[in-house]
């Protein structure tokens, strides 16, 4: 009875950890995407106030979550659904630290996602405009790493 209870908590923690890590990755990715787009507009003379920043960030968090095959939210969810279990296996069998492997898996998930969308759906063009620059692209990998790290922190066993 006790064993079943512990397993349920573990499953709950895994599911919760997964959902929160996807949310963290998505929101970070969306916000940084917006910031790089706005930075591009500022670079050509647009005056962007704080309220416009906030309005854009809010709009894009919503806007990027829709769109069928190209929904950023959906794609991050799918990418993490593959990356996190694979990272788990790597940690288990290769005895590697979770705090390294899960963030790395998050980054790889984002890189793969961006590549697949670019090649399959968009004639080899950057589908998410905020990823056009080198640092814009890195910011998305960072978002993935942050998601992976969140997953590690939530699912780690309490000592």
């Amino acid at each position: 009875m006790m064993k079943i209870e512990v397993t349920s908590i573990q499953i709950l923690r895994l599911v919760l950890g997964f959902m929160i890590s996807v949310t963290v990755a998505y929101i970070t990715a969306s916000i940084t995407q917006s910031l790089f787009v706005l930075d591009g507009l500022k670079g050509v003379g647009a005056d962007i106030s704080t309220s416009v920043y906030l309005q854009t960030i809010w709009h894009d968090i919503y806007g990027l979550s829709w769109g069928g095959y190209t929904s950023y939210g959906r794609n991050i969810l799918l990418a993490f659904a593959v990356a996190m279990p694979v990272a788990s296996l790597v940690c288990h069998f290769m005895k590697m630290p979770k705090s390294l492997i899960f963030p790395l898996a998050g980054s790889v998930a984002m890189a793969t996602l961006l590549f697949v969308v670019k090649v399959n759906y968009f004639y080899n063009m950057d589908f998410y405009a905020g990823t056009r620059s080198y640092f814009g692209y890195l910011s998305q990998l960072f978002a993935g790493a942050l998601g992976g790290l969140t997953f590690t922190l939530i699912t780690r066993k309490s000592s």
Partner: protein
Amino acid sequence: MSYDVLPVRRLFFFVSFILIGMLVTPWINADQIPKYQTENLVEGLNDPYAFVFLPDGDILLTEKTGKLRIIRDGVLLSQPVNGLPEMFIDGKYCGLFDVVLHPRFEENHYIYLSFTFGRKDANATRVARARYVDGRLDDVTTVFTGFPLKDTINGPAGHLTFLPDETLLITVGDGFRYREKAQDLESMLGKVVRITDDGKIPLNNPFINKAGDRSPVWTYGHRISLGILYDPVTNTIYEHENGPKGGDELNILKPGKNYGWPIATYGVDYSGAYVSPFQDYPNTEKPIVDWTPSIAPAGITQCRGCLWSEWEGDLFIGMLAGQHVRRVRVDNGVATHQEVLFKEMGERIRNVQFGPDGALYVMIESIGNSRVIRIEPLS
């Protein structure tokens, strides 16, 4: 008592509504019956893009695959025009685009072709002038090459129209990845440029570049413009451009003006995120028509003495995604009326032209069945 009456009253209104609907529906349908007839002019085209009528009755037609074809007496000649300049063709976006005649074509036989030049990782929109004689091009000269070279194949644009002073307007796309360059006057991306018929920069162009020279830029802040037209009667230049997800525009161009892209747009990015949070912005020109969601305008012509006298002066714009021809009436710079035409054909319209006979010629882009059809009103 009121409980008894109410359902009866509702039933009465419901039945009345249905009856009125039945009476009105045939009238609406009758009005929508196409009052025109079509005939296929030519079929079997391969990625057609633009066409132009020659004074001798022939039609020159471009295929994006890099061929300039001749239609003579309603027949597509198997032998394409020889002597075309070198161009970059990628099978999707890049290749041969527009063809226009010099305003004094009958005297000098000059035609102008727009196309992509370079290679996949370094290309640009280029315009060449050539003398068209006896089905071949001679004396081919480059009159414009966009700069800087770009490493994207998307959105090259390259549509042409002559002004009465024999200067040539050229639409140049923003290069897709480089949309902010549409606001950079040192770059030709996202611009309408103006050159003389031999490729020089007119002295009355509105901008001077950083080097202190006159710039080819005539207007800026454009995305991908697949149609530009000069109306000699009202001395107006119309240009339409494709937005991303929404934000297709019809603009009236005035020299030196900023048309906003990407700072001001009614569209959002394909991803659903903002291209810009601004739909309009100080010192940018608003379109006279915004089409959101996108219908992908491609090609523009105007009824001047066409077979539909009631449409005199109206603009006709082909729609790729919208799969129709859009009639737009503009009065004093304001679009006052729009009508969807030929929607029932269900075809992607790549270009439109009124012929010398006043009929509307519509270029249809369809896999395996691209063609040009001739449309005239039912007498």
